Structures are given as C-alpha cells and as structure tokens.
C-alpha cells in the first residue's frame, strides 16, 4: 500500500493537489476508503496505484461486454444484491446483449473461480482495482470527480490572472452570484437533484419572475431586452408612457434581421410605412441623417438596411426610457411581486425518488405553439389608443408585436383584435362588404398617375391573398390618409382622438354613392378635428375639409409612397 505524498517537484502545494486530483479522476490511483469519491483528500486517507492493465493511457475502448461480466461477477460475489444503478445497467445490458448472455454468465463464473485461485489479499486487491476502474468509467450517480465542477475542480494553476481588465472584473463581479456554477442555484440545480422547479419558475413568459431574474434586468439594457419577460415588462411601461413604437420598431427590425429572406422586402416596406415614412401611424423620432441613410438603403432592401435606425432607437431607449423604467411603478411592482424560492434540501431517498420521476420536458412543437399563442394574445391586446382609430392597425400590429410569419398573421390576430375594439369593426366590415365597390373606387380615383401603378400593383399583388387580407390591406392604404391627420404621438391628441373616434356608423351605401374624389370621406368623421392633431403638415393645411379630401383623394391612395416604389413602376411586392 502506498500513501500519497505531496509531490515535491511541484512548485506549490496547490499544484500538487491539482495534479493528484487529476490522477485520481483519470484512474491512475484510487482511494481505498471512500471509493466513490474520486478526489484527493488532504487528510491521511490511503490511496493505491492502479495496475497498468486498467490504465486509461492507451485509451482502449471500455467495452460493455466487460462491464456486463464485471456486474455478473459482482452479482455472484454479493449474492444478488447489486446497487441500484448497477442493477439498472445490468438489466439494460441483458436486454441489449442478450445474444451473448450465456457467454457473459459463463465467463463471469470462470473469472470468479480463477480469482479464487489467488491468495486472499491479492484477491482483495484485484477486486479493489476492478471496482476503481469501473467507478471511473461507469460512474454511479452522484460520483464526485475532481474533474467536475465544485471547489475542488481542476483549474490550471499556471493560468495568468486577468489583471487590468476592469471590464472583465466588473462583469465577473456582477454576474458572480447569478452564475449557476459559481453560486448556488435556487431552489436547486435540476441537473443535480432532478427537480425541475428551477426551470418552471424561469420559463420565458412566466407570470411572476424570480428575484434573481429581475435583478439581472437591472444590469444592462441588453439583458432586459433579451429576457422575454423583461421585454414584456418594458413594453408595458412604454405603453404607459406612450412611446411603445420605439420598442415596436426595434422588434420589427430584429424580425427583419432574423426573419426569412422571402418576406424580407415586404417587411421592410411595411416597417417603412408604419414607422419611418412621413405621416406614418407609429412614427419614430430619428434624426435626419439616419433617416436619409435608411431611405437610401431601402431602395435595395436587405437584411441590415435598418441597422442604423435600429441602433439609434436602441440607444435612445437605453439612455432615456431604461432609466425611467427602473424608477417606474411598473418595475417596482414587478420587483415586489418577484418570488424568491426556498432552497431545497433533499435526502438521498428523495433524490432517488426524483430520479425515478424524471420526465421529458415539453416538446419543441408545443413550445412553439405556445409562443405563437402568446404572440397572438399580445397582438390582440396592443393598446390602440396610441394610434388613431381610423387607421387599420391590425396587420401592422400582427407583425410588430412579434409574430414572425408575415402574411399568414394577417387574418387570425386581426379577428380577436376586432372583437376587442367595437369602434373599429364598422369601417372594416363595411369594407368587406363593399370590396368590389372600393376596388372600383380605387382604380377610378387615381388621378395623378404616380401612385397609381404602385397602388394597383399592390392591389393586384394582394389578390392572391385571402379576401379579408386583401380588403384589410387596401383599407390600410386608404387608412393611411386620415392617419396623417390623426395619428399622434403626443398625449394631447390622444384624448382628442379618443373623443373624435366615436365613429358614427358609416352607412354601407355611402361609399358607393361617393364620387371617386371622396375617398377621403370614407373615414370622415362628422366631428371637428382639433387643429393640434395636425402634426404632419405634409399636405397643405387647408381648413377646408373638402379640399383636404380632394387633395388627398388624389394623393390619398398613394399617401405613403415608399420612395423606391416611385422609381420602380412595377412593384411586385404587396
């Protein structure tokens, strides 16, 4: 028997211990007493060298046949009392190597009897050797090995300390308590205890997040945005502040960047129309230079065309909204409601129970469905007081509340949305009824030919889609008209829009009677529009509604022209 001693050539006690731990973990030496814990203990416990036959140096494959023979031998020796994991392995091997089983049993008996020929101490030594070999190569559950994590884990003692890198140090200091390797994972690490509470508490869209998660949101803005629950919270806050379009724009840019190539240009166009164009319903505030770059890039849209604008908005949110968010009552309430789970203390018996109750987690298909339902729910409940009620926000919202599949999302989320907003259905349902009439009107109403091909082509392009989507889309184009007047960002106009949005039920026969030039009147409300709503003095600020309608009637359908569309008369993308 040999005692392990500190290897004197090593430069430090710590190095010696590390090296020793590595030797034990790999199987060159094995402990005599606590044979399942493959660590070097600093006390006087005894270790022995493993015989070269069992060394891992040559990396001979560790055969299951050998393991089966070993287990059979052990079964003989222990008269049928094997440990639980050994029993399970044995049964499994019996199932998979059934054809060889006679051989294995026979061989086990022969080896057992051959061992009896040896002297007793040698027999014991050989048993220990074999057992140690199999602890290394088929570890029982809960084996502590020096190569694993933990305080004794192997780290290179020669690694240089990272000095002078204050950023890294700061990062480490911040995330130290959140790292499941470095600090305890509340309530318990599922990989260790087989208890999945940690995962269920930290699901992406959980109602009440954990304290640790909420704390992480305060570390940086990126953390907040990358956590779906955090993003929801932030969205809620922005909704209260009436600046939700920033986040919506950012999300839509992300969608563009990571989305499918087929729908890319359509998406880009929509984003432009919704957020960037002059008079867009959800106009975002970016500086002139960025806008210039973006518009120029949109002529040949690609995935990263909106990068500059997105970065601008991101920095805006980070510098401005993020700080206010952290002081807001929304956040404070979330922090108050956050749960801090108790740490689990499982006994060994309970651990085994947990191991038996292991079940596979939800299938990714179900998870994706849940996510889509979540997105639909969010799309349905987007606050429309920000927008003018006269816009048909539905198709936009479907996209910009995060639904990735662009065309198909048109129909389904719109319906629940429509159900929520009693005011809106009327124009839309009217539009549905009178699609043919509106079609005629659209075609007839294009006096100034510029926007004509665009609208027509766009309209034509929509034919392939569903009827409803078709009409909604056209409605959208028309809806852009009054949106320029009524879309508002400032709170002032909200109330105004609110009051003015008591849409009189427009009689169905009105559109058909209206002359082509009265397209704008389709959404005309018989209420005065307060002057402060006219934020976008793009059109001539005629007090005369007729004139306005007239001018808009001509320009109306092509109100929001994508600049690249004007260059290309043929616009295949709807």
């Amino acid at each position, binding site marked *: *028997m*040999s005692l392990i001693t500190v290897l004197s050539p090593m430069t430090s006690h710590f190095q010696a211990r590390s090296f020793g731990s590595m030797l034990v973990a790999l199987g060159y030496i094995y402990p005599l007493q606590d044979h399942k814990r493959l660590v070097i203990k600093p006390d006087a416990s005894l270790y*022995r*060298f*493993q*015989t*070269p*036959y*069992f060394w891992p140096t*040559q990396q*001979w494959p560790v*055969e299951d*046949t*050998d393991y089966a023979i070993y287990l*059979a*031998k052990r*079964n*003989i020796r222990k*008269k*049928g009392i094997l440990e639980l994991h050994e029993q399970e392995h044995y049964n499994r091997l*019996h199932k998979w190597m*059934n*054809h*060889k*089983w*006679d*051989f*294995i*049993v*026979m*061989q*086990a*008996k*022969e*080896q*057992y*009897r*051959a*061992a009896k*020929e*040896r*002297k007793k*101490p*040698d027999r014991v*030594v*050989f048993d220990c*050797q074999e057992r140690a070999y199999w602890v290394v190569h088929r570890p029982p559950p809960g084996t502590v090995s020096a190569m694993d994590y933990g305080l004794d884990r192997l780290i290179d003692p020669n690694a240089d300390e990272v000095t002078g890198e204050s950023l890294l140090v700061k990062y480490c200091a911040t995330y130290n308590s959140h790292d499941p390797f470095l600090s305890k994972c509340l309530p318990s690490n599922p990989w260790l205890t087989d208890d999945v509470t940690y995962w269920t508490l930290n699901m992406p869209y959980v109602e009440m997040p954990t304290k640790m998660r909420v704390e992480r949101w305060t570390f940086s803005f990126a953390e907040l945005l990358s956590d779906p629950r955090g993003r929801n919270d932030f969205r809620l806050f922005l909704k209260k502040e009436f600046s939700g379009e920033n986040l919506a724009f950012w999300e839509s840019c992300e969608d563009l960047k990571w989305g499918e190539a087929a729908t890319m240009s359509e998406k880009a166009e929509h984003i432009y129309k919704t957020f960037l164009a002059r008079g867009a319903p959800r106009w975002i505030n970016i500086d002139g230079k960025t806008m210039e770059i973006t518009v120029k890039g949109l002529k040949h849209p690609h995935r990263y065309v909106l990068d500059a604008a997105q970065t601008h908005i991101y920095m805006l949110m980070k510098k401005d909204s993020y700080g206010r968010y952290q002081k807001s009552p929304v956040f404070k309430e979330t922090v108050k409601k956050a749960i801090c789970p108790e740490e689990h203390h499982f006994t060994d018996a309970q651990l085994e129970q947990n191991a038996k109750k292991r079940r596979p987690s939800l299938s990714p298909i179900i998870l994706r469905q849940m996510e889509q339902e979540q997105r639909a729910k969010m799309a349905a409940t987007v606050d429309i007081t920000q927008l003018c009620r006269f816009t048909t926000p539905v198709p936009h919202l479907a996209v910009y509340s995060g639904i990735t599949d662009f065309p198909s999302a048109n129909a389904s989320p719109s319906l629940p949305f429509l159900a929520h907003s009693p005011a809106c259905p009327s124009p839309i349902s009217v539009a549905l009824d009178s699609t043919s009439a509106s079609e005629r009107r659209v075609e007839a109403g294009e006096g100034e030919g510029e926007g004509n091909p665009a609208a027509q082509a766009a309209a034509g392009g929509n034919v392939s889609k569903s009827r409803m989507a078709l009409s909604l889309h056209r409605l959208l184009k028309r809806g852009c008209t009054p949106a320029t007047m009524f879309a508002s960002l400032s709170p002032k106009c909200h109330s105004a829009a609110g009051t003015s949005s008591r849409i009189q039920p427009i009689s169905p026969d009105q559109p058909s009677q209206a002359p082509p030039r009265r397209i704008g009147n389709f959404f005309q409300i018989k209420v005065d529009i307060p002057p402060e709503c006219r934020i976008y003095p793009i059109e001539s600020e005629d007090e005369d509604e007729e004139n306005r309608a007239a001018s808009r009637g001509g320009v109306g359908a092509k109100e929001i022209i994508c600049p690249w569309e004007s260059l290309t008369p043929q616009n295949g993308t709807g």
Partner: protein
Amino acid sequence: MYTAGACNTKQIGPCCHIFELQEKCRFLLSKPVVACYRHLASYVGGCTDSLQLRDELRQTREKALTLAVSICNHLTSHLRNKSLPEGQRKEMELLWVAFSSSLELLHVDMCKVFNISDIFSLANTDALVQTGLQGGGSEVAARALSLPDLNLAPNPTLSAGLESQERSTMEQEISQMDHMIDDMEMKVNVMRWMVEPHGPQYAEVLSSSDSASLALLSVDEEQPGHQPPCQRSHIHVLLLLFAVVLVAATLSVCIIFFT
C-alpha cells in the same frame, strides 16, 4: 478460454454424431483459459511482474490458440454444412457466438499485454508500479493450463534478445488471431441478434468442480464459509446452557447438603 484437455482434433472423425460434437465443443468452451489469461494480464507491469509471469502468459496464450484453432475448425465446418437441422443449427450458432466473443476478449487482452510489456520492460524493475500485490500468478496459470502444479524451471537471465523474440512471437500470435476472427466472419454468416441464449439472467456460483455442466446448481460456494460462524454461535449457546445447568446442579446439591 477452453483447454483441449485430452481431446485431440485428429481423433474426432467425420463419423462423430453432431450431438456428441456439440457436447465436446461445449466442454471445451467451458474451460477457463480466457478468464485466467485476463487475471494474468492484470499482473503485468505491476510489482509482481517477472519473467515467470511472462512465461506463464506465453504458455497460456499458446494453449488458448491451439484450442481456438480446433474449435474454429469444428464450428466452421459444421455451420457451413447446409444440411444441418434447425435445432442443431441454433445450438451451433449459440456456441459460435460464445466462441467468437471469447476470441475477441482474448484478442483484446493479448493486445493489452503486448502494449504494457512494451512500456514496462523487465530490465528495469524499479519502474514497475507498486500495486500492492504480493503473490504471482502461478496458481492461476496452473488452472489455465489444467495442470495441478506448475513446475517451471527458472528461466535464464533476461537478455534483450529474449524480450524482442518474445515480442515478435506475440505479434505473430496477435495477427494469427486477427486472421482467425476475420476468417470466421467471412466463412460463416451468423446473425447474432437471432441467437437466443438458454441461461438465466443472473449467474450463480457452481460448486467447485471444474467439469460442471451448464446447468446451474443453486449451491452457493460461499455457504460452507458460513457454517463455522453458525456452528460457533451454536456452541456458545450450548455452553451457556451447560453452565446454567451446572450452576443449578451445584445449588441443588448445596441445598441438600445444608438441609
């Protein structure tokens, strides 16, 4: 693996009944040569490694190879015989699987010994690993070769020539084994997954007779070991009883004396 014993391949002529042949194969397969070789291999490189051990290994290896060759020929010829009835074919396939598995085990062990003896040359006995073993493998080798005792003449002193010669011999043997395994696979197509074993899932130790058949007896070899403790406890109880009786007798005698 499985010793040849007294049986000689040349004695088995084509007139032997298939069944007897199977019994013979089974008998041969039940010999412990491979198991013993593994035990001996675990000594190599340790502090009890010696020329004697290497010699024992060599002898065991030779025995194993002769055995392997004979069984291989038997099994191959019979399995290639298309006119074999179904039941017997299944039996032969079972034996085939057992034989090929043991050949593979032996091959692996041989390669390991070859590698280790490369690293741990006997010329430098200080480099041998202190594994804590005391005895050598003589008894195991004796069992392998089915000899009651191994009386080996002490080997002449180790020389470089001896070691390299041994190495080359071993290389040849390993390649021979390789060829045999390949040959077997080529000549006979045994579908391993179709083979169904007879034996039980759990092995129980037989009594100490070597020539036991495959039928398992439930006599546990360890039980004789249990007898002494039981008997000892019985003896203790009896002694106690006896003492009590003695005390009672003396007391009664005393009473009679004093009354």
